């Protein structure tokens, strides 16, 4: 520990916890509970998706052809990689490797940025074809209710995109704290928490990709 002391800022356990272990487990439990909440948050949109799919199957078939599988695929891969680097960042913090923690977090951030850029390009493409959300929709199709698919598409990917943005904010916060040397083998709770959050964002995308882009 003495060798670590010089490099890292020692973490103080909050007064209402007995030990760092208890503090860590509690935080993790809380985070998982929060993730449970996130799942139900997204679930209503998925239910809406299922309902309209059931009501208008032909429209869904038509609509998903407007989406670019390549871009979706690219984004899936980018997110998977970012999940991997995130896991590696946590691992590096666990073994008190400050430099690696920082690099892996940075790569994760870059991946997230890439994801958003691709998303931006996709959105622009949609806008170009008049496939805007709701009110501004001027797309062409054979189904009367085509706009509903895009309504759902923008809600689902939009909400997911907002989660990615929040995640990017959190990662930047982690980067700063890593730089200060706050995370080491005895204390890396925030990295672990953001990691869990980040994987959840990935998880949601794992479902979005086939549902929106692949099956119609």
């Amino acid at each position: 520990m003495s060798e670590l002391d010089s490099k890292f800022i020692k973490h103080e356990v909050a007064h209402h916890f007995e030990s760092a272990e208890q503090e860590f487990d509690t935080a993790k439990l809380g985070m998982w509970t929060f993730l449970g909440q996130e799942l139900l948050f997204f679930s209503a949109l998925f239910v809406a998706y299922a309902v309209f799919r059931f009501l208008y199957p032909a429209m869904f078939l038509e609509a998903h052809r407007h989406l670019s599988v390549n871009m979706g695929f690219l984004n899936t891969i980018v997110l998977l990689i970012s999940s991997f680097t995130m896991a590696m960042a946590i691992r590096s913090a666990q073994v008190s490797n400050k430099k690696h923690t920082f690099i892996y977090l940075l790569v994760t951030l870059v991946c997230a940025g890439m994801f958003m850029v691709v998303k931006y390009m996709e959105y622009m493409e949609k806008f170009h074809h008049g496939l805007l959300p709701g009110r501004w929709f001027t797309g062409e199709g054979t189904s009367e209710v085509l706009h509903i698919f895009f309504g759902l598409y923008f809600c689902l990917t939009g909400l997911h995109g907002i989660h990615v943005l929040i995640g990017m904010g959190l990662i930047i916060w982690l980067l700063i704290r890593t730089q200060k040397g706050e995370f080491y083998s005895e204390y890396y709770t925030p990295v672990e928490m953001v990691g869990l959050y980040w994987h959840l964002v990935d998880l949601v995308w794992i479902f979005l990709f086939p549902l929106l882009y692949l099956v119609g």
Partner: protein
Amino acid sequence: MSEHYVVPVKTYVKTLLTLIFLTFVTVKIAEFDFGSLNVAVALFVAMIKATVVALFFMGLKWDKGFNAVILITSLIFMAIFFLLTLGDIETRAQTDKVEAMRFGINSPVNIIGEGHSESHSKKH
């Protein structure tokens, strides 16, 4: 704190490769037409991927059991939400659908083939 299990890098790499592989699989599979099973197949692959992420990246495999319980509980309630809502939608009076054709939906979609400007219904 030091007793936390440090996952070997190899495990993470393998996980990533599996996930990328499964992504390919799901794209390829989507090219075949299984009829009504399309969604089921896609969801099945997605489910495997999700399990892999949860177990390895999120570390549930090595974690306190209760965290998995939380996850499963949320999934169960999601399932309830799906099943009961769809239980209504799918069993509504069958007549609805036929009769619904009679309503002029005030849609912003340009119907291809009917000439563009006329069919462009009024903006709300």
